[in-house]
C-alpha cells in the first residue's frame, strides 16, 4: 500500500510495497539464528526477483487488479509472525508477486527458465529423469 493508503498505480510503487514486505519478513525470519546466512541470501535473491518482476521502467502503470494482488501478498507476508514460517514465505513471496506483476491473465509461467532445474550442480541441470 502506498503512503496515502491507496494501491500503487505504477510498477515502481508496487515494487516498493513488495520490497518493504520482504524486508519485514526477513526481520522475522532472521531470528532463527542457525539460518541467518540462508535468510540473508534468500532475501537478496528475493530482492533481485522482485526487481526483475517490476521491470526497468518504474513509472509504467500497473493494472488495478495486479496492484491489489501485490498489496494482498504484502499484507499476507505481514501476518507472518512465526520465524520458521517466515523463512518459507521469504521463498514464496517474491514468486507470488512476480506472478501478479508479470503473468498474462491465466497463462502464467515463471520468468526463470523452468527447464534449467539444476540449482547448484550443472551435472544435474536440465537433466530430466524421464530423458
Amino acid at each position: 500500500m502506498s503512503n496515502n493508503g491507496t494501491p500503487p498505480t505504477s510498477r515502481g510503487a508496487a515494487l516498493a510495497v513488495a520490497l518493504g514486505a520482504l524486508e519485514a519478513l526477513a526481520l522475522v525470519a532472521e531470528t532463527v539464528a542457525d539460518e541467518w546466512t540462508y535468510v540473508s541470501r534468500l532475501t537478496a535473491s528475493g530482492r533481485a526477483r522482485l526487481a526483475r518482476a517490476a521491470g526497468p521502467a518504474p513509472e509504467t502503470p500497473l493494472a488495478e487488479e495486479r496492484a491489489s494482488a501485490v498489496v494482498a501478498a504484502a499484507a499476507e507476508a505481514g501476518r507472518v509472525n512465526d520465524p520458521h514460517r517466515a523463512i518459507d514465505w521469504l521463498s514464496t513471496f517474491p514468486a507470488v508477486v512476480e506472478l501478479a506483476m508479470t503473468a498474462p491473465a491465466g497463462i502464467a509461467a515463471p520468468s526463470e527458465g523452468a527447464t534449467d532445474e539444476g540449482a547448484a550442480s550443472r551435472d544435474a541441470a536440465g537433466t530430466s529423469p524421464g530423458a
Partner: protein
Amino acid sequence: MRFQDAAPDARHAVYAAIQADPLVARVAGLLAAATYPQRLLARAVMNGESTDAATWRTMFPTVLGPGSPDRDRAEAVLAGALEVAARGEEVRSQLRGAIVESLAEILVARRSGTAAVRRERRILFDGVRTEIHPYDLTVESPGREEAWDCKWGARGINDDVLNQLDDARRHAAAEERGLRAGLVVFDLRASCAVRLAERTGPKAGLLLVTLESLDVLAGMKVVAG
C-alpha cells in the same frame, strides 16, 4: 543392489496415518494435473496465515480471476490447500510433506508405471552398512532404478540428505549399476539454489526437481512461458 521395505517403527506408524488421510490423495491428485501457477498458489496457501478464499483470489488474479483458464481446477486446488492450512501447525506440516511425496509418486508412476514405484524403501548394497532412513520414493525397474527424497521446502535440503543420495549413487556405481538419485522440492528453484550453495554435502550428479519443473518426473518437458 536391492531394495527392501523399511522396518516399521513408531515414526512409520504415525506417518502412515498421515499418508492415509484422504486430503493427501485429493490435493496430490489435483496438483499432479496443475500448472506452475496453481502449484505456487497451493504452496502459498498451505504456508499462509489467511484462511479465507477471498484473500487468495485477490492475491492470484491470473490464476483465480475471471477468464483464467482451468479455473475450476484452480478453485479446487485453493479449497484443498485451505483445508490443509486449517489444520494445526504440526498436522499441517505433516500433511504438506505427505502431499509432496504423494504428488511425486503420481508423477513418477506416469513415466515408470505404478508397479515400479515404491515408498519408504531402503537400498542395500553388498558390503555396505544399510542406511537407517529409507528413501521417500524409489523406482525399481531393472536397469532404470531411481531414489528420490521429497521436501516441502528448500530449507529441508541438508547435508545428511545430500550425503545419503550421493552414497546410494556411488555404491550403485561400485556394483556397476546405474541409480538416478535426486530431490523433489515443492519450492522455488531459486530458493533451492540458495540453499544448495551453502550446503557442503555432495551435489555432483544430483537431480533436482522443483516447483517449476515437477512435470519432468512424469517424463514431460517443461515449457517456460
